[in-house]
């Protein structure tokens, strides 16, 4: 009989305007991988923050190894062996990877020996397959790499209970699989892993037991072996959901090119060449999927096209109008909309209200401004309509965006970008971190946009998503496009191999 490592009983947590946890029970056994499932805003992150001592519960008790504990700070939780990989990364952007990893480590020498730390970090990353350069600075890393640093931090602290809040949202299927192996190995060592994810397939393959939350309450805990994807989905949303390859009612017209990228090269933040002569086209109403492992130039590609990064050579045009290199204003004027990878920082003004964020892109238009002054009422009406249409869960339209749950943040961003009526839409991992219901909605929006003739460049590390949405699939590896195939009948195996850098010609033969 395995003993319970953590037991949370009757947890209640209230925030102004919301009850995030409303009597949640959670029991974690030693040596198990326990999945925590629930829709956006169900209270998963809040519950984990309580367990790591970041939030104090208004009611309820926490027991660790059978002993009741009150954590007044993350330090207490860390000392009790509980570590967490946060959904919104907690990293110091200007520090190196090694510096981030050793932060807060008690004991140790007065001086920090960079080399020694780097060696230890490298050891850990080798052991767990979390490749990252210990001397790189965080702001230079892709979101996927930053995620690895977060995981390394917790491993470095040697936590007994690990909470991972949507860790696979930024990983490729292959990376995710190796992470699962790591998690399994840790569970076999007797540690407990709490794994939060929206991907039901992952939950099925990696977890021993699953607890489902809905609206801040525990729906129930089930053994993974006794349930199915379908069963979990209906527990989560209270109805059944399914994904299949989307059938378009208005197919792409590839005779008209809306976006043309011509031999674009660009550097990354460290000034190293990260895009090498990339050429691609997106037709009218076409969805072109860009598959690849995070950090292979996808972010730079999206930024160059949307004018946020200057190219070192090459041309980008929409229709037959050129987009000025490195000029976001020019890209917007040409009709390029961009849903960036890092929503809270690049995409939205986090501490501004939902309605202001929704007005950010069209504040110059006459509907919401007059004589350069904003019409507050019109802005609010626009926001109310969009919140309704995109099903954003928010107390009201004046709530700051940063208070929303991860999924709802994304919905705000999408609502704004879609409502700008673009010709071209660059979407970087648009459904990352969304629950099944929201994913469905976002995908419908993407397809609807394509049906209306918008050319969509869908950059995603989620191969399933690309396979089910795209008309054509490009595979990116180390800043080059290695493969270009129609999605209909595409070979998953071949794409997967190409994502890992295998030579296409060889595979093709």
């Amino acid at each position, binding site marked *: 009989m395995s003993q319970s490592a953590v037991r949370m009983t009757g947890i209640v947590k209230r*925030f102004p305007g919301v009850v995030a946890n409303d009597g949640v029970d959670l029991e974690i056994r030693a040596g198990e991988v326990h999945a925590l499932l629930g829709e956006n805003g169900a209270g998963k992150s809040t519950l984990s923050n309580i367990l*790591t001592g*970041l*939030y*104090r519960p208004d009611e309820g008790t926490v027991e660790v190894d059978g002993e009741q504990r009150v954590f007044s*700070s*993350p*330090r207490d939780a*860390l*000392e009790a062996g509980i570590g*967490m990989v*946060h959904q*919104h990364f*907690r*990293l*110091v*952007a*200007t*520090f190196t990877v090694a*510096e*981030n990893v*050793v*932060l*807060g*480590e*008690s004991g*140790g*020498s*007065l*001086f*920090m020996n960079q080399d020694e730390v780097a060696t230890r970090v490298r050891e850990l990353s080798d052991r767990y397959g979390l490749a990252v350069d210990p001397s790189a600075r965080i702001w230079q890393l892709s979101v996927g790499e930053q995620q690895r640093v977060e995981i390394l*931090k917790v491993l470095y602290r040697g936590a007994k209970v690990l909470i991972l809040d949507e860790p696979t949202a930024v990983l490729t299927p292959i990376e995710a699989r190796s992470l699962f192996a790591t998690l399994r190995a840790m569970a076999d060592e007797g540690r407990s892993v709490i794994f939060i994810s929206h991907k039901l397939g992952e939950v099925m393959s990696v977890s021993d037991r699953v607890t489902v939350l809905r609206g801040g309450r525990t729906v129930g805990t089930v053994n993974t072996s006794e349930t199915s994807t379908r069963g979990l989905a209906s527990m989560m949303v209270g109805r059944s959901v399914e994904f299949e390859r989307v059938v378009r009612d208005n197919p792409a017209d590839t005779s008209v090119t809306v976006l043309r990228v011509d031999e674009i090269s660009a550097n990354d933040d460290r000034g190293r060449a990260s895009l090498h002569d990339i050429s691609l086209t997106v037709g009218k109403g076409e969805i072109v999927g860009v598959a690849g492992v995070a950090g292979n130039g996808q972010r730079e590609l999206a930024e160059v096209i949307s004018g946020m990064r200057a190219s070192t050579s090459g041309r980008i045009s929409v229709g037959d109008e050129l987009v000025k290199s490195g000029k976001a204003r020019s890209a917007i004027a040409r009709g390029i909309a961009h849903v960036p990878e890092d929503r809270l920082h690049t995409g939205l003004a986090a501490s501004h209200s939902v309605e202001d964020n929704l007005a950010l892109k069209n504040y110059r238009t006459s509907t919401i401004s007059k004589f350069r002054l904003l019409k507050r009422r019109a802005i609010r009406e626009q926001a109310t309509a969009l919140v309704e249409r995109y099903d954003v869960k928010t107390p009201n339209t004046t709530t700051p965006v*940063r*208070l929303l749950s991860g999924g709802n943040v994304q919905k705000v961003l999408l609502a704004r970008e879609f409502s700008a009526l673009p010709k071209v839409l660059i979407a970087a991992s648009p459904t990352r971190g969304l629950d099944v219901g929201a994913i469905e909605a976002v995908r419908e929006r993407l397809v609807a946009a394509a049906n209306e003739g918008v050319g969509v460049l869908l950059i995603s590390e989620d191969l399933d998503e690309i396979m089910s949405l795209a008309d054509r699939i490009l595979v990116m590896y180390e800043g080059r496009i290695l493969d270009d195939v129609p999605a209909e009948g595409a070979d998953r195996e071949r794409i997967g191999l190409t994502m890992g850098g295998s030579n296409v010609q060889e595979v093709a033969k």
Partner: protein
Amino acid sequence: MNSNIFVIIISSAIFYGTPLFYAALGGILTERSGVLNLGVEGTMLIGGVSGAWACLHIGGSAWFTVTMSILVGALAGGLVSTLLAFLCITLKTNQTVAGLAITIFAGAVGLSSYFANIWKVAKTPVPRPIRTMDVFGLADTPVLGPILFRQTSLTYVSWLLAIVATVYLFRTRVGLQLRAVGESPQTADAMGISVIRYRYIHTILGGALAGIGGVFYSLAIVPTWVDGMTKGAGWIAIALVIFGFWRPSLTLLGAYLFGALQSLSSTLKARGVDISGDILDALPFIMTIVVLVLVSSRFAHRRLGAPAALGVPYEREER
């Protein structure tokens, strides 16, 4: 003759730059923890008047009296900034407002003058001023002598402090955690670092250093307490923190540059050079304004390496 005047300008630049450096170094420590201290001017004045009081009342050898006066000034500065820390960190008031309030409350027409009155230190020359020393008997060496070997003890200590602070900030674990607190308190907190404790300690330490800067005015520069005698040095120090990119070494150079500007008029006048004193006296402040305007665009701020969470109170349950 010409080379002579440069030697004098440089050596007095170091002299006048010393209190600026103390205050600015304090500012670096405070701001690195994410707290903006606009109360430096007031803190320096309180430190200055307390140091003068101590010098008048504490007997013993010259060394003992001076050391105690400096410590009393530091203590007083620390106390003033404890109040600032309480306002900014615990009560989470707006840091600009809190800092200005401290400067007005403690400053020239406030508490420091009141203390000077009741302690009767105003216009009374201090018995044991801080004097320049003759180190290794080398003070009369041509050129280098006045610059390197005829300075005050506090100047030599400040050189040591510049090195210690640099090592502390960039080489030690505690310094790393301090910078993490100023860059991303959320991250620091999640890693088990007490944001509150780091901010309190470094705000108080910063105030203590500003207090020592104040003592330098009342014990070395004049050396008599005069109401409002720092004449805006606290503001220059705040500009210096930015000017030095939050780094002790660069700030030290900046302090000497401003020290040179401050001493220029008296040096030149003493040498019979005919130039309007008003313009020269205004120079440091013109420079301060120019520096602040140049670097206060948010872009520049980020690029220059301002702590990302500077001026933002930390609330754990906020997102």
